[in-house]
């Protein structure tokens, strides 16, 4: 008689499964007796007494272990029983763990998967609306990564979403963190009690990264798409997202990061927020803090300020962004005249532009809201210039510079060659979706640039938007930049302030 024992430590299978295993084994010809039981003292005793569990084996089995005993008349029967058992376990484990599956259509995914509730749509704009609507109609919240979706289509999608209490994030929404899962361009940050809504991708990234760096964490970070807060859309997703965060028990403080909403949307936000019992901090980049007067919203001028305010409220501290050190204040630009900011993150570029404008006056840009300062040709810098390299002009037919840094690298070399360049201001965005070594790409471009540099003393300033937990690791990226002579500041706002200071000293 052949006996075989197997133990599965702390294996919790429901009773029906255990019985199916048992009965499957007992039907094999040549198997005289088989039992699949929890390893309780009495069960072990009974199995030992009936000769299906060896004494030696029994001593290693604990109450929460699953113990299998097979007694067979031949080795062949025993082998077949063991094989059958392994198959049974494998099938069960597969069913429990859930394998990744792929479907060619939304319909097929819906048909074959129960209770789907989230979809990411990343298709060329002209196909995006149809598929996003299918997802919504099947009860899914949608992150719409695609751009080139018309206002009419956006409204149609958002009207349906709002009516059915679903979130339609986007179009052109590249960043979100849902229940700790980073989607699109997002960083690996700690979980916490700060919930964010943003009509801005890198603004959301910068806020989550600073919050993480200050020791706090994120409950949810929701994107709305840039046009959501304009009159044409009316803040549909922004309002729904804020409402969701107000009900989210994991969120204690709510933050908003966006370019200024239209007055009517702002009014709706203010009215909604007035019903919340949670504090709300907002940074409407470029808006006067007067817009927050007589509202419950705590207004901030920069993303950095908003992140600090959120952490301070959440942890009851009074942290403040660092001011320039004496070493930093001693930095002088001895040649060149102008600032050249080359950004991969649109909101980071905009934040820098606002900070620099206070100090330097006019800043020319391809994203300037004032027509007067809008660059006629984005390829050519003019006086103090900040370029958003992720803007449509540069990404038409090209990957976004956060993914493929080649275009910015070329522009870095070009600006370094320009004798007028005094300060080069850069961002370096880490996280999922971004280039695997953005600092490495920057350093390479800087080394190349130095070969043709006409101005001997260009000041290079950068900030790294990322965390230690990001795949690229913040400290390693910062170190590469420092080794290449780049001054690395803790945040984009502080990098912009240092650039403003250096150029301000020059003027003085």
């Amino acid at each position: 008689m052949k006996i075989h024992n197997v133990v599965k430590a702390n294996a919790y299978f429901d009773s029906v499964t255990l019985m199916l295993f048992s009965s499957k084994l007992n039907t094999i010809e040549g198997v005289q007796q088989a039992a699949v039981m929890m390893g309780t003292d009495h069960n072990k005793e009974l199995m030992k007494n009936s000769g299906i569990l060896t004494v030696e084996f029994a001593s290693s089995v604990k109450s929460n272990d699953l113990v299998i005993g097979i007694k067979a008349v031949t080795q062949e029967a025993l082998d077949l029983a063991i094989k059958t058992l392994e198959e049974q376990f494998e099938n069960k484990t597969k069913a429990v763990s859930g394998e990744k599956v792929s479907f060619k259509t939304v319909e097929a995914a819906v048909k074959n998967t129960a209770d789907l509730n989230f979809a990411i749509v990343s298709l060329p704009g002209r196909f995006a609306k149809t598929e996003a609507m299918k997802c919504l109609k099947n009860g899914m919240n949608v992150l719409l990564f695609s751009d080139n979706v018309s206002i009419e289509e956006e409204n149609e999608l958002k009207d349906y979403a709002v009516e059915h209490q679903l979130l339609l994030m986007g179009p052109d929404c590249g960043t979100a963190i849902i229940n700790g899962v980073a989607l699109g361009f997002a960083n690996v940050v700690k979980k916490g009690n700060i919930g964010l809504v943003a009509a801005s991708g890198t603004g959301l990234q910068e806020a989550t990264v600073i919050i993480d760096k200050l020791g706090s964490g994120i409950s949810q970070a929701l994107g709305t798409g840039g046009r959501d807060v304009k009159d044409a859309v009316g803040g549909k997703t922004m309002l729904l997202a804020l409402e969701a965060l107000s009900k989210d028990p994991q969120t204690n403080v709510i933050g908003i990061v966006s370019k200024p909403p239209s007055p009517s949307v702002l009014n709706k936000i203010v009215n909604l927020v007035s019903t919340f019992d949670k504090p709300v901090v907002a940074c409407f980049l470029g808006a006067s803090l007067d817009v927050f007067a007589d509202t419950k919203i705590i207004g901030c001028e920069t993303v950095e300020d908003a992140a600090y305010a959120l952490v301070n409220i959440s942890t009851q501290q009074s942290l403040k962004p660092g001011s320039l050190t004496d070493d930093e204040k001693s930095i002088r630009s001895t040649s060149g005249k102008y600032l050249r900011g080359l950004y991969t993150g649109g909101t980071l570029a905009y934040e820098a532009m606002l900070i620099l404008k206070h100090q330097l006056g006019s800043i020319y840009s391809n994203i300037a809201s004032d027509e007067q300062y809008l660059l006629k040709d984005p390829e050519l810098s003019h006086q103090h210039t900040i370029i958003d390299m992720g803007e449509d002009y540069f990404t038409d037919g090209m990957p976004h510079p956060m993914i493929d840094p080649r275009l910015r690298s070329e522009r870095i070399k070009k600006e370094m060659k320009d004798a007028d360049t005094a300060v080069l201001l850069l961002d370096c965005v880490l996280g999922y979706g971004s280039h695997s070594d953005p600092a490495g790409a920057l350093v390479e471009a800087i080394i190349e640039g130095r070969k043709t540099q006409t101005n001997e003393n260009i000041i290079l300033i950068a900030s790294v938007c990322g965390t230690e937990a990001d795949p690229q690791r913040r400290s390693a990226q910062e170190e590469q930049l420092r080794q290449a002579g780049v001054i690395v500041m803790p945040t984009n706002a502080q990098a912009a302030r240092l650039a403003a200071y250096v150029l301000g000293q020059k003027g003085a």
Partner: protein
Amino acid sequence: MFNIYQIKAYPSHLQFLFEDQVTLRVHSVFKQTVNLTDGNRIYTLQHSDLPSTPLSIKIEISRKAFENLTPIIGQEIKFNPKGCVAFGSVFEIKDAVVHECEMKMAHVPIHAELTILYDELTKQLFDHNGKGEMVKAAHNVITESKSSLSVFGEHMERVINDLMISTSPLEIVHQALKLIGVGEGLTPSGDDFNCGFAAALFYLKGIRSADEIRQIHQLELPKLWNTTTTISREYLMYAHEGKFNEWVIRLFDYCQKGKDIVPTLNEIKTIGHSSGSDFLTGMYFGLRAGGKLT
């Protein structure tokens, strides 16, 4: 985005989970329940089709949607005064019903009501109306038939036979406890039997013969509950305190009010694979021993 579900009900002794920041971890995952632990006790998240138990936090969620939650063993679940967030979903507490699991009978059962319950259980065992080896073993004993049994069933049959002929409270309890940790399933049938046995004795509270057995059972049971599985131990611990699931509480309530008990008995039988039937078998022998019924 996250789904928001309502917590439908939880027992009053689990109120502490929602009074402060409490962190539990996923202990084990089944189709219809997710067990959580604080390292010591077990708490169960379950969908609303299942009866409330002393372990359970019942969620207003369909069975299908529950099956699609994505718990990972060891994952942290944080509770707070507003509910909890788990598996990509928010579970709100605001309209939850807080219920009692403790069996508190309005009066000491009178013979007539006791007989109705006992007769119905006897009929079911005679008809072999139930699942699993325990019912089969009990059926063999009370009908003196010889259905073939597994090695575990044979043990149950011997114990039940000895229990039936025992007269002293100590011997009766001694026999019942021989079933702890015996049998099929995650909650071994013998444990479910002992929970049912205890339920009957709590129902019979005030009847001297039953009180004697109950007190000995309460004294002896803790010595053995560490020999069975963690989840089963949890049910035994609550049974020891006189806490049972809502269908069991309702069954005894209906007995006292003279209502039809058959639908509730049938509901209890649907619990687990054979757990409900094992429980009712234990209840039958508890009533028989404690109520001195034959």
